[in-house]
């Protein structure tokens, strides 16, 4: 009996392998850090997947895993995808960096795309990211115009370069309008916990900030801001429905074009390792409609956005002083991407000590 079961299983395995090589569809797989219903980071990645699926139709087959914890668990999830016949695997959170590279070493024929990281240890690993900080600069400009207190509250997730860069860019934008502008930072130490994010927003408001911005993924801070009657910025998706009178704008991540391009490259056999860092110019970072602000502020925001979009202005242009008072960039000097991608210091005006 046991033997029959075994041989049946073997036959099934052969069959499934046979059918796999017969079908032409390329399999694209995605790993998300949050639930696709977070209405933030993972939600937007999943929107990108759907866009890609709609564009490529029958040529592509997709699969995804949501709420995969960063770290050791991620390695198992990625490896399972690699074994299950995925041709390209997108791992969409910073914490998947080492697991992605580790699994990539074992599966040289599978392509790996890691979002927001910087390690490409194998030729089959590419990295991609968006210049969200460009949007945060625009938000800073708006915040300085709209805030009466001159202090904004920033709900941050983890002290990684990506987040630190966003805080700095926001502060620089605000200081371009009001040189004394301050930012209070609260680290939630999570990407997604609506309750905790709401509590962080309340704590910041109780301490006198009148603008809330966040680098965590839920809509909870927006709701708290609405309840307390102050303004806020959305994160990753357009959250205007949660704060019709609150949201000033939101940085919307649009991954669709990139996913279409990369999966197509796999289908055509032209996929190559690369490191893409697209911003407003490439259409990866889009600002939600400017709302709840006077026309002059709106105009200023649009001008700032246009300046960044055209490439004539980089948010990290000197003179910029670090938090400890030392000079980072001389007047007119523009930071190189390497420093930004490994950013581990604050600029002047951040009212917080960076967790190391």
């Amino acid at each position, binding site marked *: 009996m046991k033997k029959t079961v075994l041989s049946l299983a073997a036959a099934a395995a052969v069959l499934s392998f046979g059918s796999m090589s017969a079908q032409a569809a390329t399999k694209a797989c995605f790993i998300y850090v949050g639930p696709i219903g977070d209405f933030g980071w993972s939600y937007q990645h999943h929107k990108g997947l759907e866009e890609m699926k709609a564009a490529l139709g029958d040529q592509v087959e997709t699969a995804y895993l949501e709420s995969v914890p960063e770290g050791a668990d991620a390695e198992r999830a990625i490896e399972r995808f690699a074994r299950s016949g995925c041709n390209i695997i997108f791992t969409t959170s910073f914490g998947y960096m080492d697991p992605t590279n580790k699994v990539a070493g074992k599966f040289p024929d599978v392509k790996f795309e890691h979002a927001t990281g910087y390690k490409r240890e194998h030729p089959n690993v590419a990295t991609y990211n968006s210049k969200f900080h460009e949007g945060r600069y625009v938000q800073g400009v708006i915040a300085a115009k709209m805030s009466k207190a001159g202090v904004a509250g920033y709900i941050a997730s983890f002290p990684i370069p990506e987040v630190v860069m966003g805080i700095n860019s926001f502060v620089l934008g605000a200081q371009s309008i009001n040189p004394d502008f301050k930012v209070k*930072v*609260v*680290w939630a130490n999570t990407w997604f916990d*609506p309750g905790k994010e709401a*509590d962080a927003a*309340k704590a910041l408001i109780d301490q006198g900030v009148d603008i809330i911005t966040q680098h965590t993924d839920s*809509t909870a801070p927006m*709701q708290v801001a609405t309840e307390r009657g102050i303004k806020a910025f959305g994160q990753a998706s357009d959250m205007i429905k*949660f704060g019709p009178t609150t949201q000033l704008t939101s940085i919307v991540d649009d991954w669709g074009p990139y996913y279409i391009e990369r999966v197509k490259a796999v289908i055509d056999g032209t996929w190559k390792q690369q490191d893409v860092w697209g911003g407003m110019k490439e259409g990866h970072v889009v600002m939600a409609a400017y709302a709840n602000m006077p026309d002059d502020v709106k105009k200023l925001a649009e001008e700032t956005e246009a300046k960044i979009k055209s490439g004539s202005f980089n948010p990290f242009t000197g003179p910029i002083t670090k938090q400890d008072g030392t000079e980072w960039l001389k007047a007119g000097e523009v930071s190189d991407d390497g420093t930004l991608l490994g950013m581990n210091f604050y600029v002047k005006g951040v009212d917080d000590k960076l967790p190391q």
Partner: protein
Amino acid sequence: MFESILITIATAATPLLIASIGELVVERSGVLNLGVEGMMVMGAVTGFGVALATGSPWLGVLAAVLVGALFSLLFGFLTLTLVTNQVATGLALTLLGLGLSGMIGESFVGLPGVKMSYLYIPYLTDIPYVGKLLFGQDPLFYVSILLTAGVAWFLFRSRAGLTLRSIGDNHTSAHALGINVIGIRYLAVMFGGACAGLAGAYLSLVYTPQWIENMTAGRGWIALALVVFASWRPWRVLAGAYLFGAVSIGQLHAQALGIGVPSQLLSSLPYLATIVVLVLISRNRRLTMVNTPASLGRPFVPDR
């Protein structure tokens, strides 16, 4: 500002308190239900959906309580009637709840919900400094305090409570005395489920009035830990929930003040505080033994 901080603490503590009180009754009857997180998240999605459809947060709460109780009935049937392993079944209930709620709530994502309004009593709520804290919070806050008082009275001052505790301490003896062990355990499990459902509704109707998948974010597990922390005493559950809430909110304020303590350390403070208190409480082993339901988690098959 001080009043507003206290209210924030109460908001953070209330869902933990409600879920813990329910689980306390379940565990006092000798059943360990690890499915609190799952029942809570089911309550959250039901409460949100019904409130959205009817426009009434109270109907949402009612539906959440019912669904929580029904969902726990599944656990009851498996562990009490079919005598499956309680730990495994409880874990399965959590996984099922998380998955099922995500599926039910798929169309709710991105919709602003209905928020339960705060209590307002003329004059009383307007008292400076304490008015809002005492007379201006959400109605479920008062429910949670009454629930604690009610359970404390029931367990230690009523005959039915004595019966329930006797089952938790020794189900064989209770059975020999002619007490309907399984029946009472069913009721306890359903009470626990109803409370977890209510706690979930608190999240999706008061705390953060929206539906997001997995929005309980581990609060069910903290509620479970609080029961042990409180050595199965209702008022200690209240103290524990508020201690946990106070430290969680306090660390956010400490960060916003920019005091320069690593945020990772601050974030772990609520858990560290819980462990320290737990160690202090359990120093007296005899007292702990007296409070621990002796039949907790043990299967019971009545002999004829």
